[in-house]
Protein backbone atom coordinates (compact mmCIF):
# COMPACT_ATOMS: atom_id res chain seq x y z
CA UNK A 1 0.00 0.00 0.00
CA UNK A 2 1.17 3.54 -0.66
CA UNK A 3 2.42 5.56 2.28
CA UNK A 4 -0.60 7.92 2.00
CA UNK A 5 -2.74 5.00 3.05
CA UNK A 6 -1.03 4.83 6.44
CA UNK A 7 -1.10 7.09 9.45
CA UNK A 8 1.84 7.52 11.81
CA UNK A 9 0.96 7.16 15.48
CA UNK A 10 2.45 9.38 18.17
CA UNK A 11 5.11 6.73 18.92
CA UNK A 12 6.23 6.55 15.30
CA UNK A 13 4.44 3.30 14.45
CA UNK A 14 2.84 3.26 11.02
CA UNK A 15 -0.77 2.07 11.02
CA UNK A 16 -2.77 1.29 7.88
CA UNK A 17 -5.78 3.50 7.49
CA UNK A 18 -8.17 0.76 6.42
CA UNK A 19 -8.83 -1.97 8.94
CA UNK A 20 -10.79 -5.16 8.37
CA UNK A 21 -12.84 -5.94 11.48
CA UNK A 22 -13.20 -9.66 12.20
CA UNK A 23 -15.85 -10.23 14.88
CA UNK A 24 -17.17 -13.78 14.71
CA UNK A 25 -20.17 -13.23 16.93
CA UNK A 26 -23.95 -13.39 16.49
CA UNK A 27 -24.78 -14.21 12.84
CA UNK A 28 -21.08 -14.23 11.91
CA UNK A 29 -20.28 -16.99 14.39
CA UNK A 30 -21.25 -19.51 11.71
CA UNK A 31 -18.28 -18.54 9.48
CA UNK A 32 -15.92 -21.49 9.43
CA UNK A 33 -12.14 -21.50 9.47
CA UNK A 34 -11.68 -21.95 5.74
CA UNK A 35 -14.05 -19.08 4.93
CA UNK A 36 -12.32 -16.89 7.48
CA UNK A 37 -8.89 -17.59 6.08
CA UNK A 38 -10.19 -16.73 2.63
CA UNK A 39 -11.59 -13.41 3.90
CA UNK A 40 -8.22 -12.49 5.35
CA UNK A 41 -6.40 -13.56 2.19
CA UNK A 42 -8.75 -11.67 -0.11
CA UNK A 43 -8.47 -8.59 2.10
CA UNK A 44 -4.70 -8.70 2.04
CA UNK A 45 -4.62 -9.16 -1.71
CA UNK A 46 -6.90 -6.11 -2.03
CA UNK A 47 -4.40 -4.06 -0.09
CA UNK A 48 -5.99 -4.27 3.35
CA UNK A 49 -3.23 -5.26 5.70
CA UNK A 50 -4.75 -4.33 9.07
CA UNK A 51 -6.98 -6.70 11.00
CA UNK A 52 -9.03 -6.00 14.11
CA UNK A 53 -10.06 -8.70 16.53
CA UNK A 54 -10.73 -9.17 20.23
CA UNK A 55 -10.84 -11.73 22.98
CA UNK A 56 -14.62 -11.30 22.88
CA UNK A 57 -14.99 -11.99 19.14
CA UNK A 58 -15.66 -15.72 19.28
CA UNK A 59 -13.19 -17.81 17.31
CA UNK A 60 -11.68 -14.80 15.55
CA UNK A 61 -8.31 -14.81 17.33
CA UNK A 62 -8.05 -18.58 16.94
CA UNK A 63 -8.75 -18.55 13.20
CA UNK A 64 -6.37 -15.65 12.67
CA UNK A 65 -3.52 -17.95 13.67
CA UNK A 66 -4.19 -20.06 10.60
CA UNK A 67 -4.80 -17.07 8.38
CA UNK A 68 -1.49 -15.48 9.37
CA UNK A 69 0.32 -18.77 8.98
CA UNK A 70 -0.96 -19.01 5.44
CA UNK A 71 0.09 -15.45 4.69
CA UNK A 72 3.56 -16.09 6.05
CA UNK A 73 3.86 -19.32 4.12
CA UNK A 74 3.08 -17.41 0.95
CA UNK A 75 6.00 -15.09 1.63
CA UNK A 76 4.30 -12.24 3.48
CA UNK A 77 6.49 -11.02 6.31
CA UNK A 78 5.00 -10.37 9.74
CA UNK A 79 5.81 -6.66 9.52
CA UNK A 80 3.54 -6.39 6.47
CA UNK A 81 0.34 -6.86 8.42
CA UNK A 82 -1.01 -4.94 11.39
CA UNK A 83 -2.93 -6.75 14.11
CA UNK A 84 -5.17 -5.16 16.72
CA UNK A 85 -6.77 -7.00 19.58
CA UNK A 86 -8.61 -5.93 22.69
CA UNK A 87 -8.83 -6.72 26.40
CA UNK A 88 -12.45 -7.66 27.16
CA UNK A 89 -14.52 -6.47 30.11
CA UNK A 90 -14.41 -9.74 32.01
CA UNK A 91 -10.64 -9.70 31.60
CA UNK A 92 -10.53 -6.19 33.00
CA UNK A 93 -12.46 -7.38 36.03
CA UNK A 94 -9.95 -10.20 36.49
CA UNK A 95 -7.11 -7.70 36.01
CA UNK A 96 -4.28 -9.92 34.83
CA UNK A 97 -3.58 -7.82 31.74
CA UNK A 98 -0.17 -9.25 30.84
CA UNK A 99 -1.58 -12.76 30.93
CA UNK A 100 -4.37 -11.77 28.53
CA UNK A 101 -1.91 -10.18 26.15
CA UNK A 102 0.12 -13.40 26.26
CA UNK A 103 -3.06 -15.42 25.68
CA UNK A 104 -3.89 -13.38 22.60
CA UNK A 105 -0.36 -13.75 21.25
CA UNK A 106 -0.42 -17.48 21.82
CA UNK A 107 -3.88 -17.91 20.32
CA UNK A 108 -2.90 -15.96 17.22
CA UNK A 109 0.58 -17.50 16.99
CA UNK A 110 2.29 -14.11 17.06
CA UNK A 111 5.38 -12.70 18.76
CA UNK A 112 3.91 -9.25 19.10
CA UNK A 113 0.73 -7.30 18.55
CA UNK A 114 0.73 -4.03 16.67
CA UNK A 115 -2.03 -2.54 18.77
CA UNK A 116 -3.79 -3.61 21.96
CA UNK A 117 -6.84 -1.74 23.17
CA UNK A 118 -8.84 -1.80 26.36
CA UNK A 119 -12.19 -2.66 24.78
CA UNK A 120 -14.21 -0.45 27.12
CA UNK A 121 -13.45 2.11 29.85
CA UNK A 122 -14.80 -0.15 32.59
CA UNK A 123 -15.63 2.16 35.52
CA UNK A 124 -13.31 1.84 38.45
CA UNK A 125 -10.94 -0.45 36.54
CA UNK A 126 -9.78 1.03 33.27
CA UNK A 127 -7.24 3.46 34.67
CA UNK A 128 -5.42 0.82 36.70
CA UNK A 129 -5.65 -1.59 33.79
CA UNK A 130 -4.19 1.08 31.53
CA UNK A 131 -1.17 1.32 33.79
CA UNK A 132 -0.77 -2.45 33.60
CA UNK A 133 -1.02 -2.27 29.81
CA UNK A 134 1.73 0.35 29.79
CA UNK A 135 4.05 -2.14 31.50
CA UNK A 136 3.31 -4.79 28.90
CA UNK A 137 3.95 -2.24 26.16
CA UNK A 138 7.36 -1.45 27.62
CA UNK A 139 8.26 -5.13 27.47
CA UNK A 140 7.85 -4.98 23.71
CA UNK A 141 4.95 -7.43 23.39
CA UNK A 142 2.78 -4.66 21.94
CA UNK A 143 3.91 -1.96 19.53
CA UNK A 144 1.17 0.52 20.48
CA UNK A 145 -1.66 0.76 22.99
CA UNK A 146 -5.01 2.44 23.08
CA UNK A 147 -8.54 2.39 24.33
CA UNK A 148 -11.86 1.79 22.62
CA UNK A 149 -15.25 3.36 23.18
CA UNK A 150 -14.02 6.08 25.50
CA UNK A 151 -15.50 9.55 25.65
CA UNK A 152 -13.69 12.77 26.40
CA UNK A 153 -14.38 12.48 30.14
CA UNK A 154 -12.71 9.05 30.18
CA UNK A 155 -9.71 10.35 28.31
CA UNK A 156 -9.45 13.37 30.60
CA UNK A 157 -9.60 11.12 33.64
CA UNK A 158 -6.94 8.88 32.14
CA UNK A 159 -4.62 11.71 31.17
CA UNK A 160 -4.86 13.26 34.61
CA UNK A 161 -4.03 9.97 36.38
CA UNK A 162 -0.23 9.98 36.29
CA UNK A 163 -0.10 7.64 33.34
CA UNK A 164 3.12 7.42 31.38
CA UNK A 165 1.72 6.92 27.92
CA UNK A 166 -1.04 8.88 26.25
CA UNK A 167 -3.17 6.43 24.25
CA UNK A 168 -1.81 6.07 20.77
CA UNK A 169 -5.25 5.21 19.43
CA UNK A 170 -8.87 5.73 20.36
CA UNK A 171 -11.31 3.45 18.56
CA UNK A 172 -14.94 4.51 18.85
CA UNK A 173 -18.18 4.50 16.86
CA UNK A 174 -17.92 7.29 14.31
CA UNK A 175 -19.94 7.68 11.10
CA UNK A 176 -21.95 10.49 9.57
CA UNK A 177 -24.91 9.86 11.91
CA UNK A 178 -22.61 9.99 14.93
CA UNK A 179 -19.93 12.42 13.86
CA UNK A 180 -18.24 12.92 17.28
CA UNK A 181 -16.80 16.31 16.39
CA UNK A 182 -15.83 17.04 19.96
CA UNK A 183 -13.98 13.73 20.36
CA UNK A 184 -12.20 14.25 17.05
CA UNK A 185 -11.05 17.71 18.10
CA UNK A 186 -9.90 16.45 21.49
CA UNK A 187 -7.92 13.56 20.02
CA UNK A 188 -6.39 15.80 17.40
CA UNK A 189 -5.25 18.20 20.10
CA UNK A 190 -3.77 15.38 22.20
CA UNK A 191 -2.21 13.53 19.27
CA UNK A 192 -4.38 10.46 19.70
CA UNK A 193 -5.07 8.74 16.39
CA UNK A 194 -8.66 7.81 15.73
CA UNK A 195 -10.16 4.62 14.46
CA UNK A 196 -13.88 4.30 13.86
CA UNK A 197 -15.76 1.12 14.59
CA UNK A 198 -19.22 0.40 13.17
CA UNK A 199 -18.05 2.79 10.46
CA UNK A 200 -21.05 2.00 8.27
CA UNK A 201 -23.51 1.93 11.18
CA UNK A 202 -24.12 -1.67 10.09
CA UNK A 203 -25.91 -0.30 7.01
CA UNK A 204 -29.20 -0.10 8.83
CA UNK A 205 -32.07 1.23 6.74
CA UNK A 206 -31.71 4.87 7.82
CA UNK A 207 -28.15 4.71 6.40
CA UNK A 208 -28.70 2.47 3.39
CA UNK A 209 -31.62 4.49 2.06
CA UNK A 210 -30.41 7.93 3.09
CA UNK A 211 -31.12 10.22 0.15
CA UNK A 212 -28.03 12.42 0.52
CA UNK A 213 -25.62 9.50 0.68
CA UNK A 214 -27.26 7.84 -2.29
CA UNK A 215 -27.16 11.08 -4.28
CA UNK A 216 -23.48 11.51 -3.53
CA UNK A 217 -22.92 7.89 -4.44
CA UNK A 218 -24.36 8.59 -7.86
CA UNK A 219 -22.42 11.85 -8.17
CA UNK A 220 -19.05 10.21 -7.49
CA UNK A 221 -19.86 6.82 -8.99
CA UNK A 222 -19.36 5.13 -5.63
CA UNK A 223 -21.44 3.10 -3.22
CA UNK A 224 -22.95 4.51 -0.02
CA UNK A 225 -20.34 2.54 1.92
CA UNK A 226 -17.50 4.11 -0.05
CA UNK A 227 -18.91 7.60 0.49
CA UNK A 228 -19.12 7.02 4.25
CA UNK A 229 -15.64 5.54 4.51
CA UNK A 230 -14.22 8.38 2.44
CA UNK A 231 -15.87 10.93 4.76
CA UNK A 232 -14.10 9.22 7.63
CA UNK A 233 -10.74 9.13 5.86
CA UNK A 234 -10.96 12.80 4.94
CA UNK A 235 -11.76 13.57 8.57
CA UNK A 236 -8.51 11.86 9.53
CA UNK A 237 -10.25 8.84 10.99
CA UNK A 238 -9.12 5.31 10.11
CA UNK A 239 -12.21 3.19 9.60
CA UNK A 240 -12.63 -0.34 10.87
CA UNK A 241 -15.18 -1.91 8.58
CA UNK A 242 -16.50 -5.38 8.01
CA UNK A 243 -16.45 -6.48 4.38
CA UNK A 244 -16.63 -10.23 4.04
CA UNK A 245 -17.88 -10.51 0.48
CA UNK A 246 -15.32 -10.35 -2.32
CA UNK A 247 -17.01 -7.45 -4.11
CA UNK A 248 -17.17 -5.38 -0.90
CA UNK A 249 -13.53 -6.07 -0.16
CA UNK A 250 -12.62 -5.07 -3.70
CA UNK A 251 -14.48 -1.76 -3.24
CA UNK A 252 -11.90 -0.78 -0.64
CA UNK A 253 -9.26 -0.52 -3.36
CA UNK A 254 -11.21 2.36 -4.88
CA UNK A 255 -11.30 4.54 -1.79
CA UNK A 256 -8.22 6.54 -2.66
CA UNK A 257 -9.07 7.46 -6.24
CA UNK A 258 -11.58 10.21 -5.47
CA UNK A 259 -12.03 13.13 -3.08
CA UNK A 260 -15.25 14.45 -1.58
CA UNK A 261 -15.57 18.21 -2.04
CA UNK A 262 -15.56 20.44 1.01
CA UNK A 263 -19.19 21.25 0.39
CA UNK A 264 -20.16 17.59 0.20
CA UNK A 265 -18.16 16.86 3.36
CA UNK A 266 -20.20 19.53 5.19
CA UNK A 267 -23.45 18.11 3.86
CA UNK A 268 -22.52 14.63 5.10
CA UNK A 269 -21.50 16.07 8.49
CA UNK A 270 -24.96 17.63 8.61
CA UNK A 271 -26.44 14.14 8.92
CA UNK A 272 -25.22 13.90 12.49
CA UNK A 273 -27.87 13.05 15.05
CA UNK A 274 -25.59 11.49 17.67
CA UNK A 275 -27.05 8.12 16.77
CA UNK A 276 -25.07 5.31 18.30
CA UNK A 277 -25.82 1.86 16.96
CA UNK A 278 -24.09 0.40 20.03
CA UNK A 279 -25.46 2.10 23.16
CA UNK A 280 -22.32 2.15 25.24
CA UNK A 281 -23.76 1.42 28.68
CA UNK A 282 -25.38 -1.86 27.60
CA UNK A 283 -21.91 -3.01 26.63
CA UNK A 284 -20.21 -1.51 29.66
CA UNK A 285 -22.48 -0.89 32.66
CA UNK A 286 -21.72 2.39 34.37
CA UNK A 287 -20.25 3.86 31.16
Amino acid at each position, binding site marked *: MEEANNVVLSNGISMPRLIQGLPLIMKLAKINKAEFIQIVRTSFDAGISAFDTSHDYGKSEEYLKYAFRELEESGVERKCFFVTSKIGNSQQYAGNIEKYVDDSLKTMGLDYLDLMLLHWPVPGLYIDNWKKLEKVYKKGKIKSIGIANAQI*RHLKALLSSEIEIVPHVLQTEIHPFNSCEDIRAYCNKNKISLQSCSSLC*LMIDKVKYNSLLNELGSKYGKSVAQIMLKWLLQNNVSPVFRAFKQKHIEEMKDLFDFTLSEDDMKKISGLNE*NYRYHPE*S*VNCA*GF
Partner: protein
Amino acid sequence: MKRRKKKIVLSTTFIIFISALLAFVNIGLSLILLLLYFTSLSVYLVYYFLNKLITFTNWWHNQFVYTQQFISNAGYRKDLTRNYEVVNVGSNPARFSFFYEDILGENWSTGTQGLDMDLEILRYFHSYLKKGAYVLLPIVPFSSVSGYLTKPSIPYIAKFTKILDSLQVNNNVKLRTAKEYLTNPLKYKWKAIKYLVKDVPKDNRLDIVEQSMQLSEMKQDALRWMKIWKDEFKIETLESSLPEHLQNGRIVSIEMMNHMISFLLERGYKPVLVSPPMSKSLAELFTPQIKETYIDSFVRDIMKVYDIPYLDYIDNEEFQNNSLYFNALFMNLRGRKLFTKRVLADLGL
Protein backbone atom coordinates in the same frame (compact mmCIF):
# COMPACT_ATOMS: atom_id res chain seq x y z
CA MET B 1 -30.24 -28.46 31.39
CA LYS B 2 -27.62 -30.51 29.55
CA ARG B 3 -25.26 -30.25 32.53
CA ARG B 4 -28.04 -31.37 34.87
CA LYS B 5 -28.83 -34.39 32.66
CA LYS B 6 -25.17 -35.27 32.51
CA LYS B 7 -24.86 -35.11 36.31
CA ILE B 8 -27.91 -37.34 36.76
CA VAL B 9 -26.66 -39.89 34.25
CA LEU B 10 -23.19 -39.97 35.83
CA SER B 11 -24.42 -40.24 39.40
CA THR B 12 -26.98 -42.92 38.47
CA THR B 13 -24.33 -44.93 36.71
CA PHE B 14 -22.01 -44.56 39.68
CA ILE B 15 -24.67 -45.66 42.20
CA ILE B 16 -25.67 -48.66 40.09
CA PHE B 17 -22.03 -49.64 39.83
CA ILE B 18 -21.50 -49.36 43.62
CA SER B 19 -24.74 -51.29 44.24
CA ALA B 20 -23.64 -54.02 41.93
CA LEU B 21 -20.35 -54.35 43.82
CA LEU B 22 -22.18 -54.22 47.14
CA ALA B 23 -24.56 -56.97 45.98
CA PHE B 24 -21.68 -59.47 46.16
CA VAL B 25 -21.26 -58.62 49.84
CA ASN B 26 -24.80 -57.96 50.99
CA ILE B 27 -27.73 -57.88 48.61
CA GLY B 28 -29.95 -56.20 51.20
CA LEU B 29 -27.61 -53.22 51.57
CA SER B 30 -27.33 -52.98 47.83
CA LEU B 31 -31.11 -52.78 47.46
CA ILE B 32 -31.36 -50.20 50.25
CA LEU B 33 -28.77 -48.07 48.53
CA LEU B 34 -30.66 -48.25 45.25
CA LEU B 35 -33.96 -47.46 46.97
CA LEU B 36 -32.49 -44.46 48.79
CA TYR B 37 -30.87 -43.14 45.67
CA PHE B 38 -33.90 -43.47 43.40
CA THR B 39 -36.18 -41.99 46.06
CA SER B 40 -33.87 -38.98 46.41
CA LEU B 41 -33.62 -38.67 42.64
CA SER B 42 -37.41 -38.74 42.29
CA VAL B 43 -37.83 -36.08 44.95
CA TYR B 44 -35.19 -33.95 43.24
CA LEU B 45 -36.82 -34.33 39.82
CA VAL B 46 -40.27 -33.51 41.16
CA TYR B 47 -38.84 -30.42 42.88
CA TYR B 48 -37.07 -29.42 39.64
CA PHE B 49 -40.23 -29.74 37.54
CA LEU B 50 -42.35 -27.92 40.09
CA ASN B 51 -39.89 -25.02 39.91
CA LYS B 52 -40.19 -25.10 36.13
CA LEU B 53 -43.99 -25.26 36.22
CA ILE B 54 -44.28 -22.34 38.60
CA THR B 55 -42.66 -20.12 35.95
CA PHE B 56 -45.73 -20.63 33.75
CA THR B 57 -48.09 -19.13 36.31
CA ASN B 58 -49.47 -15.59 36.37
CA TRP B 59 -48.03 -15.29 39.86
CA TRP B 60 -44.56 -15.69 38.37
CA HIS B 61 -45.06 -13.49 35.29
CA ASN B 62 -46.62 -10.73 37.38
CA GLN B 63 -43.31 -10.28 39.16
CA PHE B 64 -41.63 -9.29 35.91
CA VAL B 65 -44.48 -7.61 34.07
CA TYR B 66 -42.91 -4.17 34.40
CA THR B 67 -39.51 -5.22 33.04
CA GLN B 68 -40.52 -5.60 29.39
CA GLN B 69 -39.60 -2.05 28.38
CA PHE B 70 -35.87 -2.51 28.69
CA ILE B 71 -33.83 -3.20 25.57
CA SER B 72 -30.99 -5.48 26.58
CA ASN B 73 -27.58 -6.10 25.07
CA ALA B 74 -29.14 -9.01 23.18
CA GLY B 75 -32.04 -6.90 21.93
CA TYR B 76 -30.56 -3.62 20.76
CA ARG B 77 -29.60 -4.90 17.34
CA LYS B 78 -33.27 -5.53 16.60
CA ASP B 79 -34.75 -2.54 18.41
CA LEU B 80 -32.94 0.46 16.91
CA THR B 81 -34.66 3.09 19.08
CA ARG B 82 -32.09 5.47 20.49
CA ASN B 83 -31.88 9.00 21.83
CA TYR B 84 -34.78 9.06 24.28
CA GLU B 85 -35.62 12.63 25.25
CA VAL B 86 -36.89 11.77 28.70
CA VAL B 87 -37.09 8.82 31.07
CA ASN B 88 -38.09 8.34 34.67
CA VAL B 89 -36.97 5.87 37.30
CA GLY B 90 -38.66 5.40 40.69
CA SER B 91 -40.84 2.96 42.55
CA ASN B 92 -44.50 1.95 42.11
CA PRO B 93 -46.02 5.44 42.18
CA ALA B 94 -43.60 6.36 39.36
CA ARG B 95 -44.62 3.27 37.39
CA PHE B 96 -48.17 4.57 37.58
CA SER B 97 -47.44 8.25 37.00
CA PHE B 98 -45.73 8.45 33.62
CA PHE B 99 -46.85 7.58 30.11
CA TYR B 100 -45.02 9.20 27.19
CA GLU B 101 -47.59 9.55 24.48
CA ASP B 102 -46.16 12.25 22.22
CA ILE B 103 -42.45 12.22 22.99
CA LEU B 104 -39.70 9.63 22.77
CA GLY B 105 -39.59 8.68 26.41
CA GLU B 106 -39.69 5.57 28.55
CA ASN B 107 -40.77 4.61 32.01
CA TRP B 108 -37.86 2.84 33.67
CA SER B 109 -39.72 1.96 36.82
CA THR B 110 -40.18 -1.79 37.30
CA GLY B 111 -42.75 -1.31 40.05
CA THR B 112 -41.21 -1.71 43.49
CA GLN B 113 -37.79 -0.17 42.99
CA GLY B 114 -35.43 1.39 45.51
CA LEU B 115 -32.96 4.18 44.90
CA ASP B 116 -30.09 1.71 44.62
CA MET B 117 -31.81 -0.13 41.78
CA ASP B 118 -32.72 3.18 40.14
CA LEU B 119 -29.00 3.81 39.88
CA GLU B 120 -28.20 0.31 38.60
CA ILE B 121 -30.81 0.73 35.88
CA LEU B 122 -29.39 4.09 34.89
CA ARG B 123 -25.87 2.66 34.86
CA TYR B 124 -26.91 0.00 32.39
CA PHE B 125 -29.41 1.74 30.15
CA HIS B 126 -28.47 5.44 30.13
CA SER B 127 -26.81 5.31 26.69
CA TYR B 128 -30.25 5.05 25.13
CA LEU B 129 -30.74 8.67 26.16
CA LYS B 130 -29.88 11.53 23.85
CA LYS B 131 -27.28 14.06 24.94
CA GLY B 132 -28.85 16.38 27.47
CA ALA B 133 -31.93 14.21 27.99
CA TYR B 134 -34.14 14.72 31.03
CA VAL B 135 -34.13 12.06 33.74
CA LEU B 136 -37.03 12.35 36.13
CA LEU B 137 -36.23 11.24 39.68
CA PRO B 138 -39.54 10.75 41.47
CA ILE B 139 -39.70 11.48 45.17
CA VAL B 140 -42.45 9.09 46.17
CA PRO B 141 -43.76 8.78 49.71
CA PHE B 142 -40.96 7.54 51.92
CA SER B 143 -38.19 7.58 49.25
CA SER B 144 -36.50 9.77 51.82
CA VAL B 145 -36.11 6.89 54.27
CA SER B 146 -35.90 3.97 51.84
CA GLY B 147 -32.27 3.62 52.95
CA TYR B 148 -33.69 2.15 56.16
CA LEU B 149 -34.72 -0.98 54.23
CA THR B 150 -31.39 -2.78 54.23
CA LYS B 151 -32.67 -6.32 53.76
CA PRO B 152 -34.64 -6.39 50.54
CA SER B 153 -36.39 -9.64 49.68
CA ILE B 154 -34.76 -12.05 47.27
CA PRO B 155 -37.69 -12.07 44.81
CA TYR B 156 -37.56 -8.27 44.66
CA ILE B 157 -33.85 -8.19 43.85
CA ALA B 158 -34.13 -11.14 41.46
CA LYS B 159 -36.34 -9.03 39.20
CA PHE B 160 -33.33 -6.82 38.47
CA THR B 161 -30.98 -9.70 37.70
CA LYS B 162 -33.21 -10.40 34.71
CA ILE B 163 -32.65 -7.00 33.13
CA LEU B 164 -29.18 -5.91 34.20
CA ASP B 165 -25.79 -6.85 32.76
CA SER B 166 -24.28 -10.16 33.86
CA LEU B 167 -21.01 -8.55 35.00
CA GLN B 168 -23.04 -5.93 36.89
CA VAL B 169 -24.98 -8.73 38.59
CA ASN B 170 -21.96 -10.88 39.35
CA ASN B 171 -20.10 -7.97 40.90
CA ASN B 172 -22.95 -6.99 43.21
CA VAL B 173 -23.45 -9.27 46.22
CA LYS B 174 -27.19 -8.61 46.53
CA LEU B 175 -27.85 -9.22 42.85
CA ARG B 176 -25.57 -12.23 42.60
CA THR B 177 -27.23 -13.94 45.56
CA ALA B 178 -30.73 -13.31 44.23
CA LYS B 179 -30.06 -14.82 40.81
CA GLU B 180 -30.86 -18.29 42.10
CA TYR B 181 -34.48 -17.27 42.60
CA LEU B 182 -34.97 -17.23 38.84
CA THR B 183 -34.34 -20.98 38.55
CA ASN B 184 -35.29 -22.06 42.06
CA PRO B 185 -38.19 -19.88 43.21
CA LEU B 186 -39.65 -22.53 45.53
CA LYS B 187 -36.54 -22.45 47.67
CA TYR B 188 -37.43 -18.89 48.65
CA LYS B 189 -41.20 -18.99 48.35
CA TRP B 190 -42.29 -22.58 48.87
CA LYS B 191 -45.87 -21.52 49.57
CA ALA B 192 -46.08 -20.39 45.94
CA ILE B 193 -46.77 -24.01 45.09
CA LYS B 194 -50.43 -23.21 45.77
CA TYR B 195 -50.49 -21.14 42.58
CA LEU B 196 -50.07 -24.32 40.59
CA VAL B 197 -53.47 -25.28 41.93
CA LYS B 198 -55.14 -21.86 41.94
CA ASP B 199 -53.31 -19.11 40.12
CA VAL B 200 -53.72 -15.36 40.65
CA PRO B 201 -55.12 -13.10 37.92
CA LYS B 202 -52.74 -11.55 35.43
CA ASP B 203 -51.52 -8.09 36.44
CA ASN B 204 -53.22 -5.73 34.00
CA ARG B 205 -53.15 -2.58 36.07
CA LEU B 206 -51.41 -0.64 33.31
CA ASP B 207 -54.50 -1.12 31.15
CA ILE B 208 -56.94 0.40 33.64
CA VAL B 209 -58.24 3.59 32.12
CA GLU B 210 -60.91 4.73 34.55
CA GLN B 211 -61.34 4.99 38.28
CA SER B 212 -62.39 1.55 39.39
CA MET B 213 -63.05 2.29 43.07
CA GLN B 214 -66.02 4.03 44.61
CA LEU B 215 -65.20 6.98 46.86
CA SER B 216 -65.76 4.94 50.02
CA GLU B 217 -63.32 2.34 48.69
CA MET B 218 -60.77 5.02 47.79
CA LYS B 219 -60.92 6.38 51.33
CA GLN B 220 -60.37 2.89 52.75
CA ASP B 221 -57.52 2.34 50.31
CA ALA B 222 -55.91 5.60 51.41
CA LEU B 223 -55.99 4.42 55.01
CA ARG B 224 -54.54 1.11 53.90
CA TRP B 225 -51.57 2.88 52.25
CA MET B 226 -50.86 4.91 55.35
CA LYS B 227 -50.90 1.73 57.44
CA ILE B 228 -48.59 -0.05 54.98
CA TRP B 229 -46.01 2.73 55.25
CA LYS B 230 -46.25 2.93 59.01
CA ASP B 231 -45.72 -0.83 59.29
CA GLU B 232 -42.96 -0.94 56.69
CA PHE B 233 -40.97 1.81 58.35
CA LYS B 234 -42.07 1.07 61.92
CA ILE B 235 -43.46 4.57 62.40
CA GLU B 236 -45.80 5.00 65.35
CA THR B 237 -47.02 8.47 64.56
CA LEU B 238 -46.54 9.97 61.13
CA GLU B 239 -47.17 13.46 62.48
CA SER B 240 -44.09 13.29 64.72
CA SER B 241 -40.63 14.36 63.65
CA LEU B 242 -38.42 11.82 61.93
CA PRO B 243 -37.99 8.86 64.31
CA GLU B 244 -34.51 8.08 65.48
CA HIS B 245 -34.40 4.66 63.87
CA LEU B 246 -34.99 6.28 60.45
CA GLN B 247 -32.31 8.96 60.77
CA ASN B 248 -29.62 6.75 59.30
CA GLY B 249 -31.98 5.64 56.56
CA ARG B 250 -32.46 9.31 55.69
CA ILE B 251 -28.71 9.85 55.42
CA VAL B 252 -28.33 6.79 53.20
CA SER B 253 -31.20 7.93 50.97
CA ILE B 254 -29.66 11.36 50.56
CA GLU B 255 -26.31 9.80 49.65
CA MET B 256 -27.92 7.48 47.09
CA MET B 257 -29.88 10.32 45.53
CA ASN B 258 -26.80 12.55 45.37
CA HIS B 259 -24.81 9.74 43.83
CA MET B 260 -27.48 9.28 41.17
CA ILE B 261 -27.63 12.99 40.41
CA SER B 262 -23.85 13.19 40.18
CA PHE B 263 -23.83 10.19 37.82
CA LEU B 264 -26.34 11.88 35.54
CA LEU B 265 -24.73 15.31 35.56
CA GLU B 266 -21.30 13.83 34.81
CA ARG B 267 -22.78 12.33 31.66
CA GLY B 268 -24.49 15.52 30.55
CA TYR B 269 -28.08 14.58 31.38
CA LYS B 270 -30.63 16.81 33.16
CA PRO B 271 -31.91 15.26 36.39
CA VAL B 272 -35.21 16.64 37.67
CA LEU B 273 -36.78 15.81 41.03
CA VAL B 274 -40.51 15.20 40.75
CA SER B 275 -43.07 14.57 43.48
CA PRO B 276 -45.95 12.84 41.67
CA PRO B 277 -49.49 13.63 42.81
CA MET B 278 -51.79 11.42 44.85
CA SER B 279 -55.56 11.14 44.94
CA LYS B 280 -57.58 13.55 47.06
CA SER B 281 -58.46 10.67 49.39
CA LEU B 282 -54.78 10.08 50.14
CA ALA B 283 -53.68 13.72 49.97
CA GLU B 284 -56.15 14.50 52.76
CA LEU B 285 -54.23 12.09 55.02
CA PHE B 286 -50.82 13.28 53.89
CA THR B 287 -50.76 16.37 56.05
CA PRO B 288 -48.33 19.29 55.64
CA GLN B 289 -46.42 18.00 58.67
CA ILE B 290 -45.97 14.55 57.13
CA LYS B 291 -44.98 16.12 53.84
CA GLU B 292 -42.43 18.33 55.56
CA THR B 293 -40.86 15.42 57.49
CA TYR B 294 -40.78 12.85 54.71
CA ILE B 295 -40.55 14.85 51.49
CA ASP B 296 -39.83 18.58 51.73
CA SER B 297 -36.91 18.34 54.15
CA PHE B 298 -35.43 15.53 52.05
CA VAL B 299 -35.65 17.60 48.90
CA ARG B 300 -34.06 20.56 50.63
CA ASP B 301 -31.15 18.39 51.76
CA ILE B 302 -30.58 17.24 48.19
CA MET B 303 -30.84 20.75 46.81
CA LYS B 304 -28.15 21.92 49.25
CA VAL B 305 -25.73 19.89 47.16
CA TYR B 306 -27.26 20.05 43.69
CA ASP B 307 -29.20 22.96 42.26
CA ILE B 308 -31.54 21.00 40.02
CA PRO B 309 -35.21 21.57 39.21
CA TYR B 310 -37.89 20.23 41.53
CA LEU B 311 -41.47 19.79 40.34
CA ASP B 312 -43.90 19.26 43.21
CA TYR B 313 -47.38 18.06 42.30
CA ILE B 314 -48.50 16.56 45.59
CA ASP B 315 -50.74 19.50 46.47
CA ASN B 316 -51.75 20.15 42.87
CA GLU B 317 -55.56 19.95 42.97
CA GLU B 318 -55.80 19.38 39.23
CA PHE B 319 -54.24 15.93 39.73
CA GLN B 320 -55.97 15.04 42.98
CA ASN B 321 -59.18 14.23 41.14
CA ASN B 322 -60.00 10.65 42.15
CA SER B 323 -61.12 9.85 38.62
CA LEU B 324 -57.48 9.91 37.51
CA TYR B 325 -56.62 6.97 39.76
CA PHE B 326 -57.49 3.31 40.08
CA ASN B 327 -56.54 3.23 43.74
CA ALA B 328 -55.67 5.96 46.19
CA LEU B 329 -52.05 6.21 45.01
CA PHE B 330 -51.72 4.86 41.47
CA MET B 331 -52.88 6.77 38.44
CA ASN B 332 -54.89 5.08 35.74
CA LEU B 333 -53.91 5.42 32.08
CA ARG B 334 -55.92 8.61 31.60
CA GLY B 335 -54.32 10.14 34.66
CA ARG B 336 -50.81 9.12 33.60
CA LYS B 337 -51.23 10.65 30.15
CA LEU B 338 -52.53 13.94 31.55
CA PHE B 339 -49.94 14.15 34.27
CA THR B 340 -47.02 13.35 31.95
CA LYS B 341 -48.17 16.01 29.48
CA ARG B 342 -48.18 18.52 32.32
CA VAL B 343 -44.68 17.58 33.49
CA LEU B 344 -43.32 17.81 29.94
CA ALA B 345 -44.95 21.20 29.47
CA ASP B 346 -43.42 22.39 32.74
CA LEU B 347 -40.02 21.24 31.47
CA GLY B 348 -40.55 23.07 28.21
CA LEU B 349 -40.71 19.88 26.13
